[in-house]
């Protein structure tokens, strides 16, 4: 009895509170587990994979998966037209998507938050210029702009990541600026100002932490967008280049075999779908837990 009252009186730690609300959403928890598995595979891929991802087993080209006639346990998900093991390539490929997500979100979020903070705190004319520039970037369909940027920079996974980060960044700017503008009106900011806090302190220590909830949700959602866009660029031949086992690039290589060997096409796409789905599920849960205002239902 005394125990329960004590728990009720003491405010739970933010992490615990977050977990309490996050756990409510069953889909989000499933998403989190899948994402954890994905991260594990991404980190330890080459050690888990049964074969070398680029090794070509010429005696076993286009072998079907194990449950189909002609399949064998040596290559559980079959082999591609060059005799490379599908399972190993998928496992090793996870790290590219994971890497893309991490890098793109880090670049886009850091840049976007900085520019957004500046726009929120700077004089009106600076704000106007920044927001017009963001409008210009947003006027281009994101994939098209990324495609053209990669064409300028030269097709590679690194350039694809830079292009996607540039395209995603305006969303962070807008989001940060909007929350900064509404936070700035509040009394605690005024009191910090009165207490003598300088502009950098006001920006990064007083205001920024209170703007983070929607930004974290956006980060989760753009993690999945980044993976999808990088795979799309790879599919169009403008992302990772063969023989890199990036999932989108694998799909592009497999295109001509779609009517002969369904497995070379199905599995890489399924891997993309499951990963993106897991991240989106997690993103929904994050939104519900962190930002009651944005809660959809």
């Amino acid at each position, binding site marked *: 009895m005394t125990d329960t009252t004590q728990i009720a009186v003491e405010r739970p730690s933010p992490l615990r509170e977050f977990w309490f609300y996050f756990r409510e959403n069953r889909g989000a928890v499933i998403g989190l587990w899948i994402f954890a598995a994905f991260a594990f595979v991404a980190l330890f891929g080459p050690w888990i994979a049964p074969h070398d991802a680029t090794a070509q087993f010429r005696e076993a080209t286009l072998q079907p998966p194990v449950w189909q006639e002609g399949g064998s346990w040596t290559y559980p998900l079959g082999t591609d037209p060059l005799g490379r093991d599908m399972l190993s390539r998928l496992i090793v490929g996870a790290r590219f998507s994971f890497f893309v997500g991490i890098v793109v979100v880090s670049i886009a979020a850091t840049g976007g938050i900085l520019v957004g903070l500046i726009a929120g705190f700077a004089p009106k004319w600076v704000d106007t210029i920044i927001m017009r520039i963001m409008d210009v970037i947003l006027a*281009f369909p994101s994939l098209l702009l990324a495609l053209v940027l990669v064409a300028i920079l030269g097709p590679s996974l690194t350039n694809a990541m830079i292009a996607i980060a540039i395209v995603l960044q305006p969303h962070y700017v807008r989001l940060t600026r909007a929350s900064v503008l509404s936070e700035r009106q509040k009394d605690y900011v005024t009191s910090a100002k009165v207490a003598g806090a300088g502009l950098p302190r006001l920006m990064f220590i007083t205001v920024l932490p209170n703007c983070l909830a929607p930004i974290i949700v956006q980060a989760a959602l753009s993690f999945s967008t980044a993976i999808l866009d990088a795979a799309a660029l790879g599919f*169009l031949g403008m992302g990772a280049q063969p023989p890199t086992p990036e999932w989108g690039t694998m799909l592009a290589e497999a295109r001509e075999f779609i009517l002969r060997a369904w497995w070379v096409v199905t599995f890489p*796409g399924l891997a993309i779908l499951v990963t993106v789905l897991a991240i989106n599920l997690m993103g929904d849960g994050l939104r519900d837990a962190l930002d009651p205002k944005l809660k959809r239902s």
Partner: protein
Amino acid sequence: MLNYVLSRLFTFVPTFIGVTLISFGFIRVLPGDPIVVMAGERGLTAERYAELEAQFGFDRPLYVQFWEYLTGVLQGDLGNSFVTKRPVWDEFFALFPATLELSLCAMIFAVVIGLPAGVIAAVNRGKFYDRALMSTALIGYSMPIFWWALLLIIVFSGNLQWTPVSGRIDLIYYFPDPTGFMLIDSITSGQKGAFGSAVRHLILPTIVLGTIPLAVIARQTRSAMLEVLGEDYIRTARAKGLAPGRINGVHALRNALIPVITVIGLSVGTLLAGAILTETIFSWPGIGKWMVDSIFRRDYPVVQGGLLLIAVAVMIVNLTVDMLYGVINPKIRKR
């Protein structure tokens, strides 16, 4: 209202100039000198190079070049394609109807299925239908559409042989295309079976391109409906004894439509981005495929002009949506 329209138009101008600046700057930072690319394998003498440089105006100061580019753009002059030598403007508008037809069909597909799905989910909140529909919507939302296209091709074109794999119509049909819309032109041509062929070619690309907008519309409709269903006037309608169908379908849906319309308008950009992938996979002769092909051919004027025209198209649609929004929702106008 007039103030609102004017202020929106006022923000349009700097954005337009910015978009022009980006597409102008683009040709100057691309690797490879455009003149060398244009000359191709044969190569150029130094004199001929200088001559061409003068002809295209690359030797003049950048701001002069930009000014000429901007005035050219406003008069519909975007230069000529390196490959076909035809004006970029003409090529764009020759191919645009194909993309427009596909996008319209995809949008209709998305709205016709997405809207009822969202309403059904909201009305059955938390029950089986809601969960099933929203899980499906989330899968659609997470779908890599280029893979989805390949899967549909495997099943419907490969295994079942119901639909063709590429193009807009079977090659045995040939007729003039006054509107550019294959569905309309095939009827007016009077050729037997042409319309059916056009429809069969259109089905898979429509589904592929419509999938993500469909998911977005279903999710948005559901959340908008849920919000409206909690309002007092809905309770009043229930208390009056109105039939649930009438409450949900007329009273609630009408107000829930406002945010949904915005989402529909704003998906035009998504649709054009999706068209790049969809058209490439299905060899659909529209803007998206044209852009991708031109990027690979290093046909700079086309990439430059296409980028600009697509961005302007997206901006015009967004502007129109904003203004419509002002008409539907009086609260916005006052700001």
